[in-house]
């Protein structure tokens, strides 16, 4: 295995940052500064939601907010830098929420996001 491949694999082993929120509002407000430099994934835990939300910072500085519930059998998804995976039946999703491996057939629930005053607003009702 090449050195770069090994480095890539080791990088992918580091835990993803987690942000806990307790807001009961229909929106979540996440500071943009929550993303460390060179970090594009953030797991958001909210006690009012059964599953976590994966916030993905895209290259154009917009965001995907993906509900980490497999659309196949509602199992929790495992998030990595190369996508989201369901350990139960092997479904996989891209960081855009699209199905990359079946049996899931539908994309992940994606919440609308917008950026205001250095805050990422996630609209949970969408």
């Amino acid at each position, binding site marked *: 295995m090449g050195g770069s491949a090994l480095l890539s694999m080791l990088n992918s082993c580091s835990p993803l940052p987690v942000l806990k929120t307790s807001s009961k509002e229909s929106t979540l407000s996440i500071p943009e500064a929550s993303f460390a430099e060179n970090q594009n994934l953030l797991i958001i835990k909210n006690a009012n939601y*059964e599953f976590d939300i994966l916030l993905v910072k895209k290259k154009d500085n917009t965001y995907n907010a993906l509900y980490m519930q497999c659309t196949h059998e509602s199992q929790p998804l495992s998030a990595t830098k190369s996508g989201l995976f369901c*350990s139960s039946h092997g479904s996989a999703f891209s960081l855009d929420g699209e199905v990359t491996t079946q049996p899931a057939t539908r994309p992940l629930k994606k919440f609308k996001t917008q950026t205001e005053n250095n805050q990422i607003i996630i609209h949970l009702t969408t």
Partner: protein
Amino acid sequence: MILLTCFSSNAQVITREDSLNAGLTPQNNPTVISGYGQAKVQYDLRFQTGTANLTRNVLFIGHRFSNRISFFSEMELEDAKVVGGKASGEISMEQLFLKFNINRNNYLVAGLFIPRIGIINENHLPTTFNTNDRPYVEQLVIPSTWRELGVGVYGQIPKIPGLNYSAALMNGLNSGGFVQGTGIADGKFEGSNATASNLAITGALLYYVNHFRVQVSSYYGGSAGLSQKQGDSLKLDYGAFGTPVALNEANVQYNGTNGIHCKALACFVSIKDADRINVAYANNTPSSMYGYYAEVGYNLFQPFTRLNSKSLLLFARYEAMNLNASLPKNGIEDGLQQKQFFIAGLHFQPLKGVSVKLDYVQRITGEYNKLLYVTNPYASNIPFYTTYQFINLGIGYSF
């Protein structure tokens, strides 16, 4: 959960999207229905005969009691019908368990469930594998949809993204049911009056990293759920892990964004008291079996952006197994149990959840041992060949 339609307690029909948006909350009290199935026509190139079969139809029913407790069940009808008193299909529960969420990363299951062993065992929907038949190694060495009654714990390790684990305690096997040629498959209980005095433990580690899915799993269980008197009489070790069967397996899959798909699996089964099983039951149980396969495929639609919602996978697979890799002194070798399969084909998916499959299968075995088979002396008896070729055309779906 997979949802086609969803029936609440007041018979209101809500769609998948409604359920998803509602988060399947207990207030909705949702009961869900779904399913999968497959059918195929097979043409035997040697004898120039064909068979057509509705291989299976599986009905899934689930119910969410609360955010923490859910019910899952799958009822399967194989070969289209079950007729009293005749050789025909089979109807059985493929799964039936309660799931208890411990927290967001861990859950328990209790009931009849499929442990994480191999690829197909847990992920057996026909839209997820390319051939009309499930991989033969995962039918004959690792039993297909191998379910037993027990308790399992599943989860992920947040500190290592992509790393998942599972462990389960379930009823063991019945070595008296082992049949030469089907490995340990006919020793399964599948939830039907299983002996619970012999147990099995299984565990698996599953890791997703850079488009690879890597898994290792093990199984160790007793195969003699006998009373002391029966065990002593048959000279078999009884108790929780008496007359043990051990299975170890590893597999890796690659699903790249470049249209290339690969998978490989290897497994080894050890039955250390095979000699005593043969004395007790005269079923020619081997001391060990192994099998492996590797498959590579490429999505021919990958270069065409406008065909992104469809796929046409060209694939090839090689499988090999030896169901009597080693035999006890009282075992009888049979070359028929050494098998190789060369498979190539096309798997077309007009959309996710629907499959049309065309494949060619060449099966090569060793010579059968005439001492083991009582053959019909009539002239119409079909001669034995070591090589057969088949063409399979089929459909599959899951929703």
